[in-house]
């Protein structure tokens, strides 16, 4: 819908302006071949009102033919063609209306030559009028586009901050802490040395989380180290039930990724996979470079008879959003379940960190 036609008040404004622009047209026609004001206005005003609608149709032509790079010449040609068509339609209607007025309403006694002259005026005036409208529409569209771009940028900035906050909060999941403290509590009695190691491991994990979370991007290697620390802690809770296989191909560990991207996926793999399986299973972490892309995948077993858990998908959604914010269009996350295996795959643009950056 044309923005000027979308509301009754605007439509009324368009009609008024179009009717008023009938005045100068009538004035010009009177100058060329004298006739009463009444006759001139009766001819000109309905025609300008009609033409205003034709001229507004430039909106759709403008939208379909944006002036951009190579398409600019094409767009100009399209607009000139549209201008000719518009004025042709207008002139034809002018001829019909002129004859109709003479025959049935008011015989002003104009000669055939004078009527032809009127039509030439319409035809000549119609082209610039249409083109002015097209330019105005292009300006309006450009204004609107820059407005929308600005809004999108603001939205994505807010979205990025939100996602970061949420990632950090999810990272410091209190239940993970509670369960870990309970495990340490158990170790204190049976294996004091192990309890000390757990305390140190938990401290190391938390410190790394805070350090990585404060940065804009980290290397996959750093993220994998964080995941290893996390798994060390969970290993104590789950024992033999938790088995981990890592397949990281050369070149992958040096690529940039958003911080705290992988750990939530591994946490999900435990929460919705290992924890539900009586005998546990293998969490498989893969990373490889394929051309310009970095592919990372986390796979875990699922028990089809597992009790229903709530809040699934929230973690995945968060990872997806952070991926969007980080890697523009090429990034994607897919989650799939095949039989009793659940797999989350990430694709990011592979950007290699300079040597030594990973321990900065």
């Amino acid at each position, binding site marked *: 819908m044309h923005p000027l036609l979308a509301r009754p008040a605007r439509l009324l404004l368009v009609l008024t302006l179009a009717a008023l622009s009938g005045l100068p047209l009538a004035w010009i026609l009177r100058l060329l071949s004298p006739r009463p004001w009444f006759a001139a206005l009766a001819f000109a005003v309905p025609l300008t009102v009609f033409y205003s609608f034709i001229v507004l149709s430039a909106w759709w032509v403008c939208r379909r033919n944006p002036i951009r790079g190579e398409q600019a010449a094409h767009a100009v040609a399209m607009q000139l063609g549209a201008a000719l068509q518009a004025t042709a339609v207008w002139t034809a209607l002018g001829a019909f209306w002129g004859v109709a007025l003479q025959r049935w309403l008011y015989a002003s006694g104009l000669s055939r030559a004078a009527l032809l002259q009127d039509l030439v005026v319409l035809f000549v005036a119609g082209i610039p009028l249409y083109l002015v409208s097209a330019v105005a529409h292009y300006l309006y569209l450009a204004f609107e586009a820059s407005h929308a771009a600005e809004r999108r940028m603001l939205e994505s900035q807010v979205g990025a901050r939100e996602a970061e906050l949420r990632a950090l909060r999810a990272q410091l999941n209190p239940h993970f802490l509670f369960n870990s403290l309970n495990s340490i509590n*158990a170790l204190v009695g*049976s294996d004091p040395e192990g309890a000390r190691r757990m305390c140190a491991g938990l401290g190391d994990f938390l410190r790394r989380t805070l350090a990585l979370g404060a940065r804009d991007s980290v290397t996959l290697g750093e993220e994998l180290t964080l995941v290893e620390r996390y798994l060390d802690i969970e290993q*104590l809770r789950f024992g033999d039930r938790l088995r981990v296989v890592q397949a990281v191909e050369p070149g992958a560990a040096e690529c940039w990724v958003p911080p705290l991207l992988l750990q939530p996926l591994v946490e999900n793999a435990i929460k919705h996979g290992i924890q539900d399986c*009586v005998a546990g299973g293998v969490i498989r972490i893969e990373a490889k470079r394929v051309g310009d892309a970095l592919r990372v995948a986390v796979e875990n077993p699922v028990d089809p008879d597992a009790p229903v858990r709530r809040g699934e998908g929230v973690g995945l959604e968060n990872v997806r959003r952070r991926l969007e914010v980080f890697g523009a269009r090429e990034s994607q996350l897919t989650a799939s379940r095949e039989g009793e295996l659940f797999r989350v795959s990430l694709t990011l643009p592979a950007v290699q960190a300079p040597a030594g950056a990973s321990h900065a």
Partner: protein
Amino acid sequence: MPERLRVLLVDDEAPARSLLREYLGAHAGVEVVGECANGFEAVKAIAEQKPDLVFLDVQMPKLDGFEVLELVAAEPGAPAVIFCTAYDEYALRAFEVHAVDYLLKPFGRDRLAESLGRARDRLAMAAARTQDAPPAAATNGAALAATARGEGRFAERIVVRDGAQVHVIPTDQVDYVEAQDDYVAVHASGRSHLKHQTLAELAEALDPERFVRIHRSFLVNVDRIARVDLLAKDQRVVILRDGKQLPVSRSGHDRLREQWS
């Protein structure tokens, strides 16, 4: 009050069980009769060992703690239950299902001793009543399951106990449910499972968009209905996809029509 307290430990994490065992070791008269690492084992052990008290984790493989409680609560001689969880949100619900107490991980010796004291009191009270006194845990498994599910949610699976064996039936596999005295027979995938529950209770737990009470004694999965036949005036039967015929009452037919309109 039993001189000796027979206790079962249920938690899928070995450190959590060993912590309980260590703490309980300091209490005279407490005997740990077993440890279970998942819900199935727990139901079986409770049936076989008849413990007085169960320390029950909430999040476990196969059956969660609330489902275990639902399956064992209605039995005579059902044990007293103390929930152990890292999740505060389960703590409140633990009380609503008449658990003796809950232990929020991590917890210390004193907190455990306090819970143990409460359990002894509860068991002593139950023993002081007549033989057929209600068990220490909640009697109403359905109310319990509803509480565990949380407000406004429908069951996605039905847990049924058959002796020491437990069947978990996803609700989308259920064809229909038939009332049989104090039991319901859940027909799913060509088998029938008896559960100690009323049809009204089960109907309340299931999504009314998917399960319609077509008769006083029948609840049907609407996805399984092939057609409805009119036998005589006001006398209809539902024909399921597998050919099974179920009677439809007049109000049941109204409910079906409402569902399909």
